[in-house]
């Protein structure tokens, strides 16, 4: 443990590449999942893409610190793997002072969309270990849609109820008008013979004993 700290201290005073040590200090890990995101149209990872990453991150730092002249050389990657993941540290322009983790995090958070866009990736396929993406709030309309549908259904039901209540009244009115017309025509034609299937007589159910059910 002690040797590691001494090594770190000695290295930090030496060449710039020595600044980046995975897992310690101000280093962040970034992971690209290009094939997952783009499938057949995936581009291969090479030095040019790495350059683009450094440029994008320098832009993010410039944007956040509002003018400090960060350049590509201020982003130091290391420990690149086949997974396409690597660690990086950021140093202040023209000096070798490491920028602290908090500032780097906030800069990345601010320009996350731009960085993603540069690589045609998303929050899930371009991951910064430890920096959680701010999730987009779900779109909620002013009137909940379900209330609208409920209103439609209840409206239809109310129309149905009103129709059911009004229909017999309307029918009765029409019948009254028709009866009034019939009476006029009856007086004109005189007596009509009753033809109600009177061969057998009509069975008058008043006299039949329907209440044969014993009562409790």
């Amino acid at each position: 443990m002690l040797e590691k700290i001494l090594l770190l201290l000695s290295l930090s005073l030496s060449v710039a590449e020595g600044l980046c040590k995975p897992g310690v200090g101000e280093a962040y890990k970034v992971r690209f999942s290009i094939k997952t995101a783009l499938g057949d149209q995936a581009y291969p990872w090479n030095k040019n893409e790495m350059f683009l990453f450094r440029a994008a991150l320098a832009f993010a730092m410039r944007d956040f610190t509002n003018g400090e002249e960060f350049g590509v050389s201020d982003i130091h990657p290391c420990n690149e793997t086949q997974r396409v993941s690597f660690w990086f540290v950021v140093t202040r322009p023209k000096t070798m002072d490491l920028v602290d983790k908090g500032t780097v995090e906030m800069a990345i958070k601010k320009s996350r969309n731009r960085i993603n866009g540069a690589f045609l990736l998303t929050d899930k396929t371009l991951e910064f270990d430890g920096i959680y993406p701010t999730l987009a709030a779900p779109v909620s309309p002013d009137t909940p849609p379900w209330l609208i549908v409920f209103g439609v259904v209840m409206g239809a039901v109310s129309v149905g109820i009103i129709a059911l209540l009004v229909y017999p009244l309307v029918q009765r009115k029409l019948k009254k008008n028709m009866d009034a017309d019939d009476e006029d025509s009856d007086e004109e034609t005189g007596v009509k013979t009753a033809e109600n299937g009177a061969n057998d007589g009509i069975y008058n159910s008043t006299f039949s004993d329907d209440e044969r059910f014993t009562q409790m």
Partner: protein
Amino acid sequence: MRLVLPNPGLDLRIPRHEDLERMEKQEAADRPKWDNKAQYILTCVGFCIGLGNVWRFPYLCQSHGGGAFLIPYLILLVLEGMPLLLLEIAIGQRLRKGSVGVWRAISPYLTGVGIGSMLVSFMVALYYNTLIAWIMWYFFNSFQDPLPWTNCPLNENRTGFIPECQQSSTVDYYFYRVTLNASNSIADSGGLQWPIIICLLAAWTVVCICCIRGISTSGKAVYITAILPYIVLAIFLIRGLTLKGALSGIKFLFTPDVEELMNPTTWLDAGAQVFYAFGLAWGGLISFSSYNPVHNNCVQDSVILSVVTGLTSVYAATVTYSIIGFRATEKYDTCINENIRTLLNGFELPEDSITASNYNAALHHLNSSNPDTVFGLDIKTCDMQKLLSEGVEGTGLAFIVFTEAITKMPGSPAWSVLFFIMLLCLGLSTLFGNIEGVVVPLKDFNLFPQKWPHEILTGATCFVSFIICLLFAQPSGIYWLTLFDNFAGSVPLLTIGLFEMIAVVYIYGIDRFNEDIKFMVGRKPSIFWQITWRFISPLIVLVILVFYLVTQAQKQLNYLVWDINSETFPALTSIPYPSWIYAVIFLLAGVPSLVVPMYALCRLIFVCYKKKIGRYFISRHHENNHGNAFEQTLLTHLNVNTH
């Protein structure tokens, strides 16, 4: 000589064959009629085919040996379901009364059977319509993209999701928290959920308006509610079969496991499912058949209904399991991909080195070379069988499994709307029969003034039911609903069905019944019907009832709750019922079952008492020569002949 219990006065209580013919010619307007045969068949089909065909039968099929379950199901359909069906249809058509009227006509002591049917229909209508209300809530919420149960709500600092949602799943959270706001136990009822109240109001008004004039309105509504589910099932079948993984679901459903046939539970479950699937003992079928013309071929109708119900169950099961297979495959693929990602990230391997096809080999290789690292990565096991068999019964199927599957289909809002409309139609058509089984007996009882039109009676019933349904709008509502489902709709139906068969075969008289069917249809029922009515069907129902009671009495009554704080979260926790629940269970299951013997007993006591009082006053009357005015009125009231 057939065994028939003495039943004096039967001929006075029922219309003779000649009376029936005359009433047919008269076309008496006081009794409603079907517009055509199709309406009657559709109403009965709609009544029989309900939510249980979609979410109970497929589960039973899958858990009791897949394709092999069809054997006990079809056997019991023919031996138990069809005879009872013909019995109810024929007796309704012959005696031309609702359920209370029919049993009262056979014997006044049997009115209890009708009362039991009415009580059961009422209690089932209560919780069934609550299910309809929940379906309506989901239906109303399906008209948006993305569907509200696709995503979890965010927590305060918008970096993650609400923990309850994160630990379970979006669909679980939406059902238990957003829709129901489920509490921790059945005793824990805090306030009312107003979205549920609104949906209950919508459900009860729709039912009311469809049933308001009896079969003249509900008969028109069934054209839609009975036919639409078949169309939607066809659409889902076509869609389901084109989805990846559908065939694995169907294979899982129908793979026969013949050993399950040795298990008695399989046969009991099949018998119970046939019984409930046919809507027997609810009184609705008797009522519907009483509006038929006298010479309607009821034997043919019962066979058609049985065949249609059986085929629809299999059809619905196929569709359901194609969708379940799709969902299970999706979840399995997601699980495998997650594991692949974890492995790639953990071992820093290039992206395409592990794919779904070489996953197992790669995992094995890595595990043998670096077991500690692999252990530290916490790889989840992806089990396809487990995914296929999880949560696929009852409300869990419709509101959790299916809604999740729908979110994964392209064009989800459309599929969601279709699915919930289908469930709505299935539920509504069953409810029409239920309401018929409640309102017509109330009318037969003359509890309400005669001059009140049918509309007021239906409206009053629906209003009272809505008020009682507010019990299910509480946060503990789902637990009450499960209680009702388990107890109100199980034992009472079996008991009443048993009493019905005994009543018709041994009190009404099987000979008289055969003569009736010969008069109505033209042919005496064959030996198959005779044997099943007299011995086989009552025996089967009795066996199921006894086994059910025995198993219920033996185990401690537990129920499943949604408890965030329990260890088994997100799975439902099983806790015992509080002790006061037993009183409620007695009310739900005991009262309708016991009302049959209790009513007969009370009537016996009352009649004996009347006779004794009458005899006492006659002797006094003869002594005193006419007695006083009070005794005169009393004697006439007791219908005693004073001369």
